[in-house]
């Protein structure tokens, strides 16, 4: 090719990556942190995008919301549309294929977050040079661990491919069921590596657990605060990432709501609008907007459930809960430990499912009484995900409302940032150390700002410090 075409350019990433992580800290007259806000510029075009589209297209369309967790949106929309066609009582093959897809998604997402984003903090320390505190640094110093992370992620993607189909056009789940079963060949291919994956999940969990217990004195107060916790649970209180009813508990473990049918979520959950953010703030109505917000995601799920129905993860849950004597754990950094408990749970479930002959069944779709309104709730890797739709008699979507997990964790992330800033801000200067600590606190929640914001651009973290008069006194970006 000609020299002209070989010109070096920077190809800027576009929409698949999240928007800016912008934090503003407001000081009082004594230069103490009075308020911290994580600003998210929301672009709510999606609900309009699906209006007027036929309902059966929605499980594919919603994957366009987010390149990071398309499977969660695919399954949530499919679950919602099950009710539109009266097919919510899926055949065993359909439900188990969907569950396999979901556990594969959770496994690969948690693994990626842990190995790619979190392990550098844990292995090198919060204050290590950012030049080495990244996945390449891990690859250089801990190559075996880095390979494990890549191969575990790849395994999860293989499960998604076998259950959902193409990465961009996943069509596995359809209203009332699925469009394929798992062939014997696909099953056998996945079974080849399953024991290795279980082993690696155990060792990843051990890293997270040991780090937490060995550094508890430092970690316990880090960005931590008491909160409510919310997730879906099974009817018997068991952890269930795919299906269940809403449960929320307070910081002491008292139930605020329990076994709320997803169809009734609006009776219990509302979304508050705040003047400084385009993003909404969900809260439990009976508690009110001031105190009714909840953490969601792995920490919340392990806190809200009564038990886990896979033996190794249950043993690990008990050990985790023993740390706080059975009370809810409110340590922000404990998200990592719980994320790895769920990783082990997911791979245990995957192994169980791969040995289940129902996956080779041929009864794939059911239909029943038609409905015009539907709600589905699923536990996405990052937390509770709500899909609410209305569909008219012409099969067209007339209303869509989605509450994504990062929206629910909006207030908790603000609290975490405020706590860290109060503990680590010295004077009126944003130091590299403060930047690192705020980054670590936000990262614990594994926020997905791309589906929360629908925004374009890369994801630098920008922190601005304002004095009590509102003047900008310092700013730092990474």
């Amino acid at each position: 090719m000609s020299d002209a075409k070989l010109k070096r350019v920077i190809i800027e990433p576009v929409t698949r990556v999240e928007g800016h992580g912008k934090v503003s800290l407001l000081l009082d007259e004594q230069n103490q942190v009075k308020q911290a806000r994580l600003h998210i510029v929301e672009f709510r075009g999606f609900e309009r995008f699906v209006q007027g589209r036929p309902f059966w297209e929605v499980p594919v369309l919603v994957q366009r919301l987010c390149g990071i967790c398309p499977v969660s949106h695919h399954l949530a929309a499919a679950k919602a549309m099950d009710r539109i066609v009266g097919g919510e009582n899926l055949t065993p093959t359909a439900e188990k294929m969907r569950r396999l897809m979901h556990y594969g998604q959770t496994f690969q997402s948690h693994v990626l977050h842990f190995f790619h984003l979190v392990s550098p903090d844990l292995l090198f320390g919060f204050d290590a040079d950012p030049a080495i505190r990244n996945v390449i640094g891990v690859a250089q110093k801990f190559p075996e661990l880095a390979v494990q992370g890549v191969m575990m992620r790849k395994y999860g993607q293989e499960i998604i491919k076998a259950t959902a189909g193409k990465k961009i056009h996943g069509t596995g789940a359809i209203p009332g069921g699925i469009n394929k079963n798992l062939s014997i060949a696909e099953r056998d291919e996945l079974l080849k590596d399953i024991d290795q994956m279980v082993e690696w999940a155990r060792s990843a969990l051990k890293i997270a657990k040991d780090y937490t217990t060995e550094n508890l004195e430092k970690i316990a107060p880090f960005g931590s605060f008491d909160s409510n916790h919310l997730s879906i649970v099974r009817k018997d209180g068991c952890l269930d990432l795919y299906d269940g009813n809403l449960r929320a508990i307070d910081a002491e473990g008292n139930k605020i709501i329990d076994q709320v049918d997803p169809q009734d979520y609006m009776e219990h959950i509302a979304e508050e609008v705040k003047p400084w953010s385009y993003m909404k703030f969900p809260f439990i109505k009976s508690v009110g907007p001031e105190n009714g917000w909840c953490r969601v995601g792995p920490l919340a799920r392990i806190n809200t459930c009564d038990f886990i129905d896979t033996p190794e993860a249950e043993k690990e849950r008990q050990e985790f809960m023993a740390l706080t004597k059975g009370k809810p754990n409110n340590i922000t950094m404990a998200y990592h430990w719980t994320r790895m408990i769920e990783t082990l749970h997911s791979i245990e479930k995957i192994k169980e499912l791969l040995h289940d002959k129902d996956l080779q069944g041929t009864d794939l779709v059911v239909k029943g009484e038609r409905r015009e309104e539907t709600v589905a709730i699923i536990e996405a890797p990052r937390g509770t995900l709500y899909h609410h739709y209305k569909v008219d008699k012409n099969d067209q979507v007339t209303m869509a409302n989605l509450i994504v997990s990062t929206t629910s964790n909006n207030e908790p992330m603000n609290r975490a940032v405020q706590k860290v800033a109060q503990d680590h801000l010295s004077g009126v200067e944003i130091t590299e150390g403060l930047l690192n600590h705020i980054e670590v606190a936000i990262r614990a929640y594994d926020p997905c700002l791309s589906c929360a914001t629908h925004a374009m651009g890369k994801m630098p973290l920008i922190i601005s410090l304002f004095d009590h008069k509102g003047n900008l006194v310092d700013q730092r970006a990474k």
Partner: protein
Amino acid sequence: MTAKVEKVLLIGYGNPGRLDDGLGPALAEVIEAENIPGVTVDANYQLSVEDAAAVAEHDVVIFADASVNATEPFSFTQIHPKSNTLSFSSHSVEPEAVIALAQELFKADTVGYALGIRGYEFNEFGQKISTQAKENLEKAIEFIVPALRKKIFQ
């Protein structure tokens, strides 16, 4: 590069639900249909760490992406391993980091190129590539298909 190229991986990435951001997957779809011997095609919303494993199995990898600032109609440039392209809370990685991971983890010497197709409209939901971006895509296809057949990239 002087070594004989036998296996090429083309990854077209982007979000087809965000207008011109779908240029990468659209190119991948066309190349896949060409069924060129020795060329493997993949498409995804974004690049991720596990792509390093696939990259390591090939002599050459081409990352095809929509670009907001490439020279019109497209740019094609060799990329080199780089580790500091990571953002603080993203599950995706940049092409340079994928190459770096393939090198570090799998001792691969895969040569990487970025094919940046100029796009114009990104900031809405919609499954439609703009007219100008479509023209750029056509020109990128005219350039890359013969290169893939010959396995010569410079």
